[in-house]
């Protein structure tokens, strides 16, 4: 109620300085507040010229209040006066600095005087008193409670810090994701001075709970804490910011619809005003106990641990591998688990182990598993004994150091395959020595140019490989043809008749002008008669034209072709035996006719 009575805005609490054109004043939106509320302090500098440099007043947090944030802006105003026709223009630039402070305790405190230095001159405001009352019913709508699972624990031991943000059911407040994140950031910053901190939550979820008959929505989050320093560790209260929703009444006076429409205010201009608030968590004190002097082999692991050691197979030929698995599980973070050392093994080659680290983060805390996989290769036939492996840790429950010890493992090593069959894909260690102590040197030249592992795709082979088959194929065809000619001697003459006739005509054509007419005519006539003889298998030489016609007609030669052949032969006879002169044009015409006749006769089918 006090909060309601408090003035909403007090301006001009302090007007400290008035110097020439600069004025500096500080005001607060209230001087009376409740614990958990914010007070906004505004510092205002008014100047008639642009200011440069850093002149923002500094507000630092104190035992009485926290500074939650700071903002600034500026505005410019111009006024023009005209008096008796004379115009005067005044420019004022106002710089605002807003500080959001949160009182830390009830009672009253003095907000200190603020200082600013402008152009070498210091301006100071007056301090003012702020009264802080107890939490009101509205302020306790949201509570932030920090609790720790153990108030006294050993250095490195795991404890859980639980954060409960309790919101009264039906309270007009709004908790935002940003508010939670800002709270966690501040809390982690506060914790990380003395603890290794691991978040155990991913998502935030509100759960309805009933406490003392009062319903509330509770958001829980957990951290795993590992003290890294010894002594009493104080965790300071951390502010949590949220928004309070306040209904604002309409200024219209009486609302005639209020009875019928409860939300009419909102409709007619009323609404919800959001007011930023913060609530401070409780503080904690945790006692961290220093560990007693550690034994040799202790690597810093504090908590409860277990160890599993196993080897597979239990019987192996010499030169082959055995896998030794070592797994350590414990309730700590991975950084505090040291390495495990395998004792020296004689007659056995030990390779660098594979390491696997897995971390399990749940609401029950953080647990870590570290696994080692050693590869051992026994060199000698017999028995290979892997001695006990030990692991030192501090058990907070027993308040003493403890040792985990595995049982010795015996592996029967039989005779290696290498000595039995002399055939192994990979070399034994003995063979490695025989191979040599190092790789062979590089090659200084590139023999053979470009190589390919797919030479069968080389086009050269595509060209070359058919050649032997072509040779064989053509030889066979030639042989078959030769055999046919052997069987039928006239076949060769018949098949070659046209070619021979054309060749003869071509020879005659070359010498046509120089040849006597009788010779010319005799050669052409002989050429045609030979062609007919070879083509049709009867002697055309010495036959009369009528006999020739009959023979050809009997062999189904076209009448037109027969007529042209007979005509040409008759014409040639006329020239030969009539001793008529034969000019070049007539010779060419005869050669042309002879060529055409041979071509036409060659096309004719050979009848019986």
């Amino acid at each position, binding site marked *: 109620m006090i909060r309601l009575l408090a003035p909403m805005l007090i301006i001009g609490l302090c007007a400290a300085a008035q110097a020439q054109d600069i004025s500096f004043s500080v005001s607060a939106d209230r001087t009376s507040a409740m614990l958990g509320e914010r007070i906004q302090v505004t510092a205002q500098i008014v100047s008639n010229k642009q200011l440069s440099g850093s002149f923002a007043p500094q507000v630092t947090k104190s035992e009485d209040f926290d500074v939650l944030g700071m903002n600034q802006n500026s505005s410019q105003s111009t006024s023009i006066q005209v008096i008796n026709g004379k115009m005067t223009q005044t420019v004022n630039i106002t710089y605002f600095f807003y500080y959001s402070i949160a009182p830390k305790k009830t009672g009253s405190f003095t907000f200190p005087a603020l200082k600013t230095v402008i152009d070498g001159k210091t301006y100071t405001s007056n301090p003012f008193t702020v009264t802080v009352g107890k939490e009101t019913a509205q302020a306790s709508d949201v509570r932030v409670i920090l609790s720790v699972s153990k108030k006294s624990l050993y250095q490195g031991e795991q404890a859980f810090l639980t954060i409960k943000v309790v919101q009264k059911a039906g309270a007009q407040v709004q908790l935002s994701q940003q508010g939670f994140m800002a709270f966690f950031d501040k809390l982690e910053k506060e914790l990380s001075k003395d603890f290794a901190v691991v978040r155990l939550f991913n998502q935030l979820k509100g759960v309805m709970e009933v406490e003392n008959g009062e319903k509330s929505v509770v958001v829980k989050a957990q951290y795993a804490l590992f003290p890294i320093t010894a002594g009493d560790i104080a965790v300071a209260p951390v502010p949590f910011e949220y928004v309070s929703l306040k209904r604002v009444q309409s200024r219209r006076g009486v609302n005639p619809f209020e009875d019928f429409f409860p939300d009419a205010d909102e409709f007619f201009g009323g609404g919800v005003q959001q007011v930023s608030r913060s609530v401070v968590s409780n503080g904690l004190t945790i006692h961290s106990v220093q560990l007693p002097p550690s034994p040799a082999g202790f690597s810093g692991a504090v908590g409860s641990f277990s160890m599993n050691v196993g080897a597979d197979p239990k019987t192996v030929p010499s030169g082959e591998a055995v896998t030794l698995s070592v797994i350590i599980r414990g309730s700590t973070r991975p950084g505090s688990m040291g390495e495990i050392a395998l004792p020296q093994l004689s007659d056995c080659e030990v390779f660098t182990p594979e390491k696997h680290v897995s971390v399990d983060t749940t609401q029950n805390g953080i647990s870590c598993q570290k696994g080692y996989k050693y590869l051992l290769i026994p060199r000698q036939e017999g028995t290979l004994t892997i001695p006990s492996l030990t692991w030192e840790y501090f058990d907070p429950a027993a308040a003493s150091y403890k040792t985990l010890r595995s049982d010795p493992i015996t592996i029967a090593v039989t005779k290696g395959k290498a000595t039995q069959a002399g055939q192994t*894909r990979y070399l034994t260690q003995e063979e490695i020595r025989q191979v040599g102590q190092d790789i*062979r040197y590089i090659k200084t030249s590139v023999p053979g140019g470009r190589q390919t592992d797919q030479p069968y795709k080389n086009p050269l082979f595509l060209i070359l490989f058919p050649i032997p088959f072509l040779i064989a194929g053509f030889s066979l065809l030639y042989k078959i043809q030769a055999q046919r000619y052997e069987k039928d001697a006239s076949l060769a003459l018949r098949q070659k008749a046209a070619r021979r006739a054309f060749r003869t005509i071509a020879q005659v054509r070359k010498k046509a002008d120089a040849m006597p007419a009788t010779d010319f005519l005799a050669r052409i006539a002989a050429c045609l008669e030979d062609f007919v003889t070879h083509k049709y298998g009867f002697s055309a030489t010495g036959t009369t034209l009528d006999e020739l016609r009959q023979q050809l007609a009997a062999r189904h030669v076209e009448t037109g072709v027969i007529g042209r052949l007979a005509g040409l032969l008759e014409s040639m006879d006329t020239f030969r035996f009539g001793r008529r002169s034969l000019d070049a044009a007539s010779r060419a015409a005869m050669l042309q006719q002879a060529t055409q006749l041979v071509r036409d006769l060659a096309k004719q089918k050979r009848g019986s």
Partner: protein
Amino acid sequence: MKLPHVIPCAVLLFLALAPHRAGCAPVNVWFDKANALYEHQAYDSAAFYYEQVLAAGFTNSAVYYNLGNSYFRLKKVGLALLAYERAHRLSPNDPDIQANIKFASSAIIDRIPAPEQTFFEAVLTRLHTVLSLNAQLWILFFLLLALGILFAAGLYVSSNMRLWIIYLSGLLLLVTATIGTSAGVKIYRSERVEYAIVLSPSLDAKNEPNGSKVIFTVHEGTKFRVHKAINDWSFVSLPTGLGGWVQSSSIGKI
């Protein structure tokens, strides 16, 4: 043969030989530079230049071999063995490559015994690997050419001579069939069978792609056969017959 027929033959022959002639000059410079860097123990830079030579399309067993040496010096046994195996594919009878594969294999963790061979199988394997595929193809060509000529001659010679030609052809045919089968197997393997080397320090073979059950674990440098691939997973098998799915990004195909 008339000129118009000669030109296409010449063009074909040029095209056939063209891949052997391309890009020799810069490749030789890079190769020499890489060798000089190797001598000065700048193995990382040497490997870079050898990779450049190979990236330019100049595949040669000597380049792969030297690249393998560079990786071995950089203690990258998986990559070294991958380069050696690629060199071995190109020059299967190079003793340096064989020696370095043996030596690098001695540095890997897994010792997986190969299936034992009988004497006959060992002899066949030796015969199969003694010649490179390229040499086998050339021998095959000349054998076929000889057979073609003998066949052609056999058509025209006398009966007695033909008998000798038949005997000789039978012998040549036997050799041709043996080499042809060997070459055929190599071509089939080249086309259908893939091997790979483990490049990551440790690799779990799962029961299925993205599976949860580990069938076996192999380590860097181990060689296995790749059967098929689905997305980023390959189904592989060890010489013992054990198979499983591994991430393709962790292996290098030879």
